């Protein structure tokens, strides 16, 4: 008791804003958490790979150093010369995975951020106002959810024309209802809680109640969902590029498309599926680990 009092007393000298205090605490806890650090390390690793791809990759992503060695039945696997082997066109698989990090991470992060932003907006609207606003917003969300995700993404991407941006926007839009529904449900549950009632009885205005109490207590599952969406966004981007709706230049490698392209050679050259696949898994794992620990760090109930 006395020790924690001393601690609290020294803390109070440094900290002005209670909200800032909480954020600082969360950061402190996150820095001590090995799993969060591993997750952060994985993400940092892929970001660095993406940035320094030209320095890391031994070949350009569209060079075909192994052109002569390829026959339809023989695609060489990993060797000292080509670490991840060659692909069906004789391109160096390692270089393509390295370059692929650029496109994949970009699509995943941007699409998830946009999807989350849209979902937050709709979710807060529905969760904060309830009643008719809630009904209208949730019916829109239901309609969006009733259309198969990839089908809708194809429709949106086709409407916007092939290109990186339309892929990102299409994936963002199909993820909006997921975030919206999740947040709305959480907010609705929080809205009936005693501390919200207490804030109302204190005469706190609606906006601070929604943004200061209900939203912060509802956001954790949304953050975790975002880390999972990052992984699926990469896969969805692959689906779109497989259908010819991806980035304008087919020579620019992207993990998803590399995975999609391998299906004809799966029996003869499984390494073509393995390497981009494992890259997706590890990147997704990194985001998930960080996301999971972030959720615990920002929740004061887990404070140690």
């Amino acid at each position, binding site marked *: 008791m006395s020790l*924690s*009092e001393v601690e609290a007393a020294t*803390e109070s000298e440094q900290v002005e804003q209670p909200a800032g205090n909480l954020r600082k605490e969360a950061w402190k806890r996150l820095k001590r958490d090995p799993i969060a650090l591993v997750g952060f390390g994985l993400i940092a690793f892929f970001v660095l790979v993406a940035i320094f791809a030209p320095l890391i990759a031994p070949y350009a992503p569209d060079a075909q150093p192994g052109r002569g060695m390829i026959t339809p039945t023989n695609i060489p696997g990993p060797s000292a010369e080509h670490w991840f082997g060659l692909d069906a066109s004789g391109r160096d698989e390692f270089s393509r995975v390295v370059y692929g990090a650029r496109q994949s991470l970009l699509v995943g992060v941007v699409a998830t951020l946009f999807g989350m932003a849209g979902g937050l907006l709709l979710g807060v609207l529905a969760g904060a106002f309830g009643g008719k606003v809630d009904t209208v917003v949730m019916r829109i969300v239901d309609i969006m959810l009733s259309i198969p995700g990839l089908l809708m993404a194809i429709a949106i991407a086709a409407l916007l024309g092939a290109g990186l941006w339309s892929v990102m926007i299409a994936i963002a839009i199909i993820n909006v209802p997921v975030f919206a529904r999740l947040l709305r449900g959480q907010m609705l549950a929080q809205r009936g809680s005693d501390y919200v009632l207490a804030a109302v*009885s204190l005469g706190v205005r609606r906006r601070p109640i929604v943004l200061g109490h209900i939203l912060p207590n509802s956001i954790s599952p949304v953050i975790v969902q975002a880390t999972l969406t990052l992984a699926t966004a990469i896969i969805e981007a692959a689906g779109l590029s497989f259908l010819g709706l991806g980035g304008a230049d087919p020579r620019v490698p992207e993990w998803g498309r590399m995975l999609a392209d391998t299906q004809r050679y799966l029996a003869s050259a499984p390494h073509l599926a393995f390497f981009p696949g494992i890259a997706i898994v590890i990147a997704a794992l990194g985001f998930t680990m960080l996301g999971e620990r972030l959720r615990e760090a920002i*929740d*004061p109930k887990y404070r140690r």
Partner: protein
Amino acid sequence: MSDQVPAPSAEKRASADVLLSVRGLEVHFPIRSGIVVERQVGSVKAVDGVDLDIPRGATVGLVGESGCGKSTLGRAILRLVEPTAGTVTFGDVDVRALAGEDLRRMRRQMQMVFQDPMASLDPRQNVQSVLSEPLRAHGIGGDHRARVRELLDVVGLPASAANRYPHEFSGGQRQRIGIARAIALEPQLIVADEPVSALDVSIQAQVVNLLEELQDRLGLTYLVIAHDLAVVRHIADVVAVMYLGGLVEQAPSDDLYATPLHPYTKALMSAVPIPDPVVEDTRQRILLQGDLPSPADPPTGCRFHTRCPFRQPTRCAEERPLLRTVAGHADAHRVACHWAEDIEAGRILPAASAVVDPDPVREPDPQPDPAT
């Protein structure tokens, strides 16, 4: 706290000045049915015609079993749930007529203490933020840090508590934080909804004493909602007994406990164990049978007649009794029973099935057989 002049205790108790007056208050929750087009198929009459006066500086206890509508009544007074009919007058302000910003400003005068102190505190808010939030909401300037320290001191918590979070406290400490929050705006009325029911018995007395101490210091008026008759007896000047959405008896605390007039109150009193084995073994007890009827479909006439051991063939099922005075009792003692006088005089006896008579003379414990 320093600028508040504490009202002298004796004077405030005697004062007939009514702070809050409730008349014919109803809270009916609609029961809706239908898939596309919803229509109302009925209503849950959680509070159904309550009249209640709370004198300034007094403590009114509201007791009743779970589901009788006592919490809803408390919340309806604060407009945390919307009443469907009736009036709530605070001082000379018609609380039900207020809306928007006027209502928000009015909330400053009326605060609430909740039953579950953990649930009523935002887990992401530290105590500093919890206690300064009401100050921010009403644009009260000054040094919030100093004010929070003062509030913590008043409720008996160390100043270092300000930087800690609700989960770091014990139940009793959390309830102190909840009380500090309720007094932060220096309200006149505090509705305390089961303020100690969620606490350990050993902590209950501390919190009850804190509430009483604050009342003396700040001149507060309390409406204390509880199901624990002992707590209410300790803290309340006036006790109102609620059954299925309506008040059945209202009296100064001592009168009510000494001479309960309503059959329901009698039954409640006889459910309280008396810490004297001789009395406990020899007194006659009245047991209520069955459950609380559904507030969606309350019994006609007297709400209590379906379970009343003193039920009479006439009037009880047809006429809803109103709160009235009974000859031979103080005017402040009012009861909603058609037959209160006859029951008191012993002319009407309870149905035998509802009475648990004291055990016949208890056999002495068998003596150990000297042979073994």
